[in-house]
């Protein structure tokens, strides 16, 4: 699947992560940019977690920007899933 819209999820609060997604042209692949307060220790873990969610949801051709403030893995997973669903226009039960 390919994102249809720009979307975001999460906050800049401590223990959270802000995820922004924008669609790219077909066959562009994924571009993931991360900044984090714990970049030195966890950059690779954060990237792996983000890519795992994108793999599970089978999304390609997107630019994902992550601004992390020390979010746990389950929070990163939740925010990426929310942002992807919003970008696909398939989020249910929200306004």
């Amino acid at each position, binding site marked *: 699947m390919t994102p249809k819209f720009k979307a975001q*999820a*999460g*906050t800049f*609060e*401590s*223990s*959270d992560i802000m995820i922004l997604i924008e669609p790219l042209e077909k066959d562009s692949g994924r571009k993931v940019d991360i900044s984090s307060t714990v970049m030195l220790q966890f950059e690779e873990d954060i990237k792996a977690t983000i890519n795992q969610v994108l793999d599970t949801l089978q999304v390609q051709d997107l630019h994902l920007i992550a601004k992390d403030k020390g*979010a*746990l*893995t*389950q*929070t990163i*997973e*939740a*925010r990426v*899933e*929310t942002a992807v*669903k*919003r970008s696909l226009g398939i*989020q*249910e*039960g*929200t*306004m």
Partner: protein
Amino acid sequence: MLYIPGNNPAMIQQAGVYGCDAVLLDLEDAVALNQKDAARILVRNMLKTVNFYDTEVCVRVNNFHTPFGLTDLEEIVPLQPDNIRFPKTETVADVKEFMKEVRRIEKEHGIKNPTMTIHVMIETAKGVANVYDIAAADPRIDAITIGGQDLTADMGIIKTPDGVGIDYARKRIVMAGKANDLDVLDTIFADVNDDEGLRKETEYIKKIGFAGKALINPRQVDVVHDVFNPTENEVRKAYRVYSEFIKNKKAGIGVFAIDGKMVDAPVVQRAITVLEYAKIDLKEIEKNAG
């Protein structure tokens, strides 16, 4: 029971260390309309992974008649938190409809022996009017609670510190809960800087029969525990009453006296309640009294 906004990861991941008896992960009023999806996914993930230690976990879903309620249930019911809270319950038909969906989802996920109980929340004048029937509407309901903020809004009044506007509702809900052997929980106290006001209100709701109170800040936990926890003197007295009751029961005596005061079944029941609040094992007393 401490309310935690469902879209706040920092608070949810620390929920087990605040020292309260229960936490309520809120998908309803504490979440903005445009963040309902984010909160639902976050709470779902947190339920799967966070250790809440001994703290009971309740999730408040959105009412069934909103666009969010059913989606909330689809995500949360399979995870079987300790309880699900059904807000703005107004009629028996509401409960039946809610439980029908809960049971359908449990069946679809192969949950044969569900452990999750239901808390119904009374927040409208119509709900207060129907509360006796609501409390008895399903065997999985084990607690009933009053939502003071929404109730005063529904009644078109302002919630005052003396709580006079919701006093009738509080007492009616307590009676309905007691009549059906349910825990009855009070509404929040909104001013987190007013410890004395919180203490006064908690003392009052304890006197009229509530078993606990909703909190909106961890700072409120100690005040409420202080009011609900029995004093050392009360525990000693209750221990003595129950101990003497066991001894007299073995001798075939139902009513007896301690220090010149009659002790009968209701006095013993009150003593048991105090011992239970103090987390004292009744079996241990029975063994020692034997």
